[in-house]
């Protein structure tokens, strides 16, 4: 599991890669909250996430709620089929803003 952040069009793009589970979700949570502390919109690139469980969902939900409290936008991009399945099970596909690509998410932020 790796987390990487870069600035793009005034937003922070975080790319998550690997499997987000009880072992790795604390790192994801910390990384997302630290990225939000930059005070910019956050786009999470999910394309390389091969697995996510309820603890990974919890990390995303916490980042989403923190962003809202800070008045920042929070979006997911390029969610693969296995993560999308989990979002649908949790009915979070209607809560999270999900874009087909990072670029589409950035255009919407701009």
């Amino acid at each position, binding site marked *: 599991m790796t987390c990487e952040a870069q600035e793009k069009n005034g937003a922070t793009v975080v790319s998550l890669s690997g499997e987000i*589970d*009880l072992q790795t979700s604390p790192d994801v949570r910390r990384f997302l909250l630290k990225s939000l502390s930059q005070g910019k919109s956050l786009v999470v690139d999910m394309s390389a996430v091969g697995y996510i*469980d309820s603890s990974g*969902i919890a990390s995303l939900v916490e980042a989403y709620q923190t962003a809202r409290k800070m008045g920042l936008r929070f979006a997911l991009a390029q969610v693969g089929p296995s993560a999308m399945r*989990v979002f649908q*099970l949790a009915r979070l596909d209607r809560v999270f803003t999900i874009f087909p690509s990072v670029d589409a998410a950035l255009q919407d932020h701009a």
Partner: protein
Amino acid sequence: MTTDPLSSTEPLFALRVPARPDRLRLVRAAVGEAAMLCGVGSSWVGDLVLAVDEACQNVIRHAYCGRADGDMVIEMRREADRLEVRLVDFAPRVDPSLVKPRNLTDLRPGGLGTYFIRILMDDVEFCEPPEGAGNCLRMTKRIE
């Protein structure tokens, strides 16, 4: 050796691991490979793997309360048209009535594990654990 070994009732594997988060990848790999032996599709396998992972997480976080010195045993077998998973731990006996999902409309981090297990599996129940064990969660999923 029979030609279609997995058409009926037979044990797939039993896996004993320390009940720790870093062992969950290994558990998922074993569950996924075993499910594939039954000729199911990859989304069926993904659903089963998630349910078993969530049940293991609950053993780690709730049954053992984060203590890192207990084991868990995941046993999988094919029973005719179902896959059966038994998850055994050596923690104090759990009150099954306290194991329940939260209300999904209440958006907060956490509380999804038991919900995932219930919607992804066809049957879920605590059963009598083997001699010396603490709890045994039995889950079955119909093979499609």
